[in-house]
Structures are given as structure tokens and as C-alpha cells.
């Protein structure tokens, strides 16, 4: 029992931190620019594929540095050439633009790298057991993901709280027009934030692409859950994104590990109930639904999210 709890805890935190790596960029973009970037997970996928190709030449460490920069620059280009022009036509146009971008990037990835998964592997230097617990191994690469996610949180936090650029970004979260009226180039700040946010998604792709599988469906697998993190955490709140990511990581991991039904629980209390009724469904099957249920509930009862300061 303890073994199961400890490993669910470790895996939940790991999944949560991976979600945070992906969601931190989106929460900045969403919070500051009001852009519901449907294509955010596509940049995550691009990060993984770029890392695969670069690692063939420069190895994993080269890919870790270069792939997020390439994805960030691509994000800057898309914001400068596309989003900035679409912005004039309102949020619906922006939303449709990023929606279209999802499919464009998806098809481009298939054209360049093909339909099948690519052989993007964990680097040899990190392919060992970090420690063993209750007879099970904890791989070093998982520890590396945790370390990178924490380092990323600290780096973004310091950027936002300790630098002038960060202060301008935080001010733009509440009143971007006023930031412009004080002489700051808001369109350029938007481009920077979009590039930074997509670059972070790219970095998450570099880290997760070899931990999971790098294949064309990876963006669709992560896309919806990232929005849950942003809504649950609160618009523009980095701390909120971290807390929400951990909650979702832990809730889904623990739910998957629950190998019993409500009928089983009632039976242990002496109340007999048919296993073929709704109450007999294994609780682990509700796991994938829980994050979305949380999002629906938070939108009803606390629209500004756990730590957000505004609702829209």
C-alpha cells in the first residue's frame, strides 16, 4: 500500500511538473495577451521533433539548448506576421487563427517526419537508475525532468519579479493600454512573451518527447489538459499554474491507481450492490475525466481560478 502511494506520489509530481513546463508559457500568453492559443501544444510537439533531429547531429544537450530557441523564434515570427494582424479583428479571429495553426503544424510535422513515431531517446548519460525503492527503480531521467521543471519555475519567477522586463510584463497583465501610454512598446512585449511562452513549450517537448513517445498525436494528447491547468491556476498566475499542474498530476495518477469501485467500498461496509451496475465501474476509469470536471467546477464557483486576479 505504502509502495503504491509513494510511487503514485512521485509519478503524479513528475506528470504535474511536465504539465507545468508546458502550461507556464500558455498562462503568460493567455494572461497578458488574452490569446487563447490552441496551438500551444503544437509548439510542444515541434520542440520534441526539433530535438530529435538536432540530437542526431549535436546530441541531446545541444538539442536541449537549440530546439527551444528555434521554437521560440518560430513563435515570434507567427506572432509578428500572423497574430498581430489577426488581433485587430478580435478574439474570435485569434482563436480561429490558432485553431488553424494546430492543423497546419500537425500536417507539416507529418510531411517532414512522417506518420510513425521517431526514435528520440533518453541520452545515455541519464539512462540509469537514480535510486530503488521497495524493489522498484526510479530512472535518473525522471529526476532530471523534475530538476528542470523546478529550475524553470525559479528562472521564470526571477525574470518576472526581479527584472524590469518582468515588471513590464506583470503590469501588462492588468492594463496593457496604460503600459503603452507610459511609453513602453507593448506590441514588442507581446512578441517577446509569445516567443518566450512558445519556447517554454518547446523546452517541455524536448524533455517529454523522449520520456513519452514523439509522434504526430502528441500535441492532441496534451493540448486540452494544458487549458485545464491555465483555467484552474488562474489567468497569468505562474504560482497558480504550478499548483494546478501538481493537483492535476496527482489527481489523475492516484485515480489511475485506484483498482476498486464504489460497489466494492459499499460491500466492505456490508452493503451489497451489483458489480454490473454503474456503481460497479472501476474508479480508475474516471481518472481521465477528473481534470475536466475540476475545470467545469472552478468555472462555476471561482472563475478567476485558484490564484488568478481577474476573470477575463
Amino acid at each position, binding site marked *: 500500500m505504502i509502495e503504491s502511494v509513494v510511487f503514485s506520489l512521485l509519478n503524479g509530481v513528475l506528470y504535474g511538473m511536465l504539465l507545468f513546463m508546458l502550461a507556464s508559457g500558455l498562462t503568460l500568453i493567455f494572461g497578458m495577451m488574452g490569446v487563447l492559443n490552441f496551438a500551444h501544444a503544437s509548439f510542444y510537439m515541434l520542440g520534441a521533433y526539433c530535438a530529435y533531429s538536432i540530437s542526431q547531429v549535436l546530441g541531446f544537450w545541444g538539442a536541449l539548448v537549440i530546439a527551444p530557441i528555434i521554437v521560440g523564434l518560430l513563435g515570434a515570427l507567427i506572432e509578428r506576421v500572423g497574430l498581430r494582424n489577426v488581433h485587430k479583428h478580435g478574439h474570435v479571429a485569434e482563436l480561429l487563427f490558432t485553431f488553424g495553426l494546430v492543423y497546419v503544424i500537425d500536417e507539416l510535422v507529418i510531411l517532414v517526419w512522417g506518420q510513425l513515431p521517431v526514435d528520440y531517446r533518453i541520452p545515455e548519460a541519464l539512462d540509469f537508475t537514480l535510486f530503488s525503492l521497495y524493489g522498484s527503480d526510479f530512472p535518473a531521467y525522471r529526476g532530471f525532468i523534475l530538476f528542470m521543471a523546478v529550475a524553470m519555475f525559479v528562472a521564470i519567477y526571477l525574470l518576472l519579479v526581479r527584472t524590469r522586463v518582468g515588471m513590464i510584463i506583470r*503590469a501588462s497583465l492588468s492594463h496593457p493600454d*496604460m503600459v503603452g501610454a507610459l*511609453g513602453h512598446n507593448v506590441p514588442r512585449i507581446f512578441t517577446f512573451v509569445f516567443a518566450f511562452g512558445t519556447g517554454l513549450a518547446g523546452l517541455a517537448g524536448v524533455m517529454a518527447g523522449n520520456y513519452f513517445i514523439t509522434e504526430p498525436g502528441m500535441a492532441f494528447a496534451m493540448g486540452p489538459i494544458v487549458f485545464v491547468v491555465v483555467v484552474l491556476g488562474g489567468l497569468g498566475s505562474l504560482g497558480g499554474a504550478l499548483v494546478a499542474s501538481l493537483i492535476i498530476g496527482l489527481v489523475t495518477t492516484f485515480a489511475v491507481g485506484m483498482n476498486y469501485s464504489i460497489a466494492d467500498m459499499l460491500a466492505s461496509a456490508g452493503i451489497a450492490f451489483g458489480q454490473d451496475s454503474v456503481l460497479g465501474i472501476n474508479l480508475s476509469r474516471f481518472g481521465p475525466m477528473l481534470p475536466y470536471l475540476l475545470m467545469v467546477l472552478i468555472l462555476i464557483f471561482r472563475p478567476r481560478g485558484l490564484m488568478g*486576479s481577474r476573470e477575463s
Partner: protein
Amino acid sequence: MLEVENLHAYYGKSHILQGVAFDVGEGEIVSLLGRNGVGRSTTCKSIMGLVPPRGSIRFKGEELAGMSAHRIARKGIGYVPEDRLTFSGLSTRENLEMGVQKVGAESRWTIDDAYRLFPRLSERADVKADLLSGGEQQMLSMCRTMMGNPALVMIDEPTEGLAPQIVEQVGDFLLEVAASGVSILLVEQKLSIAMRVSHRVYVMGHGQIVFEGTPQDLQADDAVRREWLEV
């Protein structure tokens, strides 16, 4: 210094400004008076590039119409909005730092000046702006704009909803700003403060200028006050 001619502005299909024309000279305090909804705030926003203007807005001889807000601010025009728009996630001190356009550049106005004029801001330096009172937010909003070292500042309804003692302080602040050589375009509904500090006044009605003169001229013109100002 600022010359506005034939200025038009629209919100959707509503024609808000219908050929506004006025000017503000160097070191002058000019008030724009009128009832709510006549287009005074829209005039400021159009000059600042926050509402698309049609017509001519010249500042120090340079045409501003069509420029973005940040470029207009960099030309030397400051704007204090009616709703203050202090940055809620930032402390009082950070809000003031946001007003600085170029770190390290010489400026007539420093954070110490803001604290000297309004000691309350110094006491609340580390407090988040959304926790400040309305009066404190107004002081902060005005000082934040001055940090950008503007040559002309547009201040929209600075005394709205403030206690008489704070209104007095705001009046003193305006006089100190003008004494430092900065021109002021003051948008007001309260005649008392406008009459106290202004060199010239304009009255707006239906999106146009309907009166121009000195405070004394306005004081003497009962018909204008009755038709365009009194509620």
C-alpha cells in the same frame, strides 16, 4: 505646443468627436470642461492614440495622428486616465518605476519628488496598488506619469470621488507641475479646481468646443455655464 484641429473620433458607429479644435501653449494649464459624455475623455484618448483619431494633432510641430500610444508618450505627452489604471499586481514603488521610460536618463521628476509631494506614497511604497485608497491611487497615477518626464500631461478628472482635503492636494500638485515648466491639459467637471489653476478654459458640448476663454470670461458668462456646465 499642442495644436488640435478638426478632430473626429468614433466608437463603432457613434460619432463622438465632431471637429474638436483647441491648443495648449508651453507652460500653460488649459482645462477642458463639460458635462459627462460630451467627449472630453475621448479627446484625451484620441490624442494619446488609444482611440483612432481623424484630423490633425500636432505636438511641437510634429503630426501625431496615426502614431501608436508608446511613440506618442516617447514624444513627451503624458496621460493620467480617469479610472487611474494603477497596476494591481505591482507595488506603489514598482508602479512609479513603470513610469520611467529610460532607466538612468535625466528627468525633472524622480520617485523622491513623488514621495516629497505625497508622503503617503512613501509610507505605502511596498503595498500593492490595488490595496491603496482611491485618493492614494490618484496620487500614484499622477506621479507615475510624471516619472516619464513629459513636456505636456493630460489629466482626466483627477478629483473625481476624492475628499475635499485630497482635492486641495491635487490642486497644489497641478500648480507644482506647471511651475516646473510642464504644460497641462486638465479634464474636469468641477469648476472650482479648474477656475483655481487654469490659464485658459474650453467648454465642450456635443463633441465640439462651444466656448473658449479665460476663467474670468467663463465666470462672467452665465449663459454658457447654464447651458453647458450646470447640471
